[in-house]
C-alpha cells in the first residue's frame, strides 16, 4: 500500500468517517483505507436506515455510502440525511456506476462518487477534494499518515 499524507480537519484532529455498506468485507476494506489516510471511524452501518441513525448519533465529517443495500438504499439515505443536515458531506461508493445512479445521488445531495473496486489513490484524491470544500476542515495534507502530529 502506498503512503498518503494525512487528511486532517482544520483543528488538526483526524477526519471522522461514517462507513455505510451492507458487506462487512467492503466496510473493512474502506476502513483500512481511511485509516491509511489518517482518518478515524466514527461509525459503521449496513443499510440506509441505520446510516441515518448513525449519522445523527456520530455527526461524522464524511459519510462513505454504498448504493445497493437492503431495507433502504444509499440514494434514499442520502436524501434523508441531507434534508436534515444540508452540510453533510457524503461520497457514494458503489460498483454500479452508471450515469443515472450518479446523477440521482448528486441530485439528492451527495458530493462525489467512487466506483468499486476502490483504488486507495482515487478515494484519497476525492476525499481531499470534498474536504477542501469544507470550511471547518483542512483539505490540504499536513502530515504523513502514521506520523506524530504535534
Amino acid at each position: 500500500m502506498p503512503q498518503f499524507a494525512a487528511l486532517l480537519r482544520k483543528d488538526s484532529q483526524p477526519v471522522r468517517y461514517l462507513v455505510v455498506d451492507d458487506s462487512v468485507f467492503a466496510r473493512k476494506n474502506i476502513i483500512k483505507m481511511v485509516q491509511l489516510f489518517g482518518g478515524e471511524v466514527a461509525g459503521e452501518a449496513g443499510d440506509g436506515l441505520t446510516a441515518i441513525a448513525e449519522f445523527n448519533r456520530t455527526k461524522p465529517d464524511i459519510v462513505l455510502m454504498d448504493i445497493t443495500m437492503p431495507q433502504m438504499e444509499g440514494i434514499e439515505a442520502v436524501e434523508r440525511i441531507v434534508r436534515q443536515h444540508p452540510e453533510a458531506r457524503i461520497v457514494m461508493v458503489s460498483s454500479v456506476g452508471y450515469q443515472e445512479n450518479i446523477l440521482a445521488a448528486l441530485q439528492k445531495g451527495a458530493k462525489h462518487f467512487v466506483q468499486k473496486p476502490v483504488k486507495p489513490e482515487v478515494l484519497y484524491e476525492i476525499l481531499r477534494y470534498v474536504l477542501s470544500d469544507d470550511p471547518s476542515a483542512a483539505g490540504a495534507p499536513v502530515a504523513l499518515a502514521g506520523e506524530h502530529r504535534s
Partner: protein
Amino acid sequence: MRMDLIQPFINAADAVFAESLQGPTKIGDLSMEEGAYRRKGIAALIAIKGDIEGRVILDLAPEVASKVAAILTGTESADEQIARETVCELANMVIGNSVTLLNDQGYTFKVFPPEIHTSDEGLRGSADTEAMVLAIETTCGNIFLNIAMHHLARRRRERDLAPAVR
C-alpha cells in the same frame, strides 16, 4: 447467445479480478448451459431486473475462495465466513461493473444485494432464458460465472428511434 450482452460481464469480471487480486487473469472456457449447472463451492447470487432480467452466480471452489479472501483481507488465511463475504462482495463488484457497461449501451437495470447461493444446482437455459458459464483463470484458481437472463424490453436507443404508435 447475444455476445453484446455477455461481453460486458466478461470485461467487468476480467477487470475486477485483475484489480482486486493484483495479478494476471485469463478468460477460459465459455459454455452454454443446456443441462443443470453444478455448484463448485462458495457461490453468491445476484438478481437483476429491468430491460434484461435474470440472475448471475459467482462461484468459487472453497480453496480458491479462501485464497482470494486471504489476498483481499491481507491475511495469511481466511475462514469460511470471510470467504463467503468476499465472494458476495466480488459478485457485487462484477455485476455492478457489468450493468454499468450495459447501461452505457442503453439498457436500464436494478441490481439487488448478493445472497449466498446454497442450492447445488445453478441456472439452466430455457426457451426464453439464455444461460452460460464463464471460467476466469486467476492466480488463485478458476472463478466461475453462471449467467442466465432474458430480454424484457428494447434498449432505450431502440425505443427512442422507434416511430410513435398512433
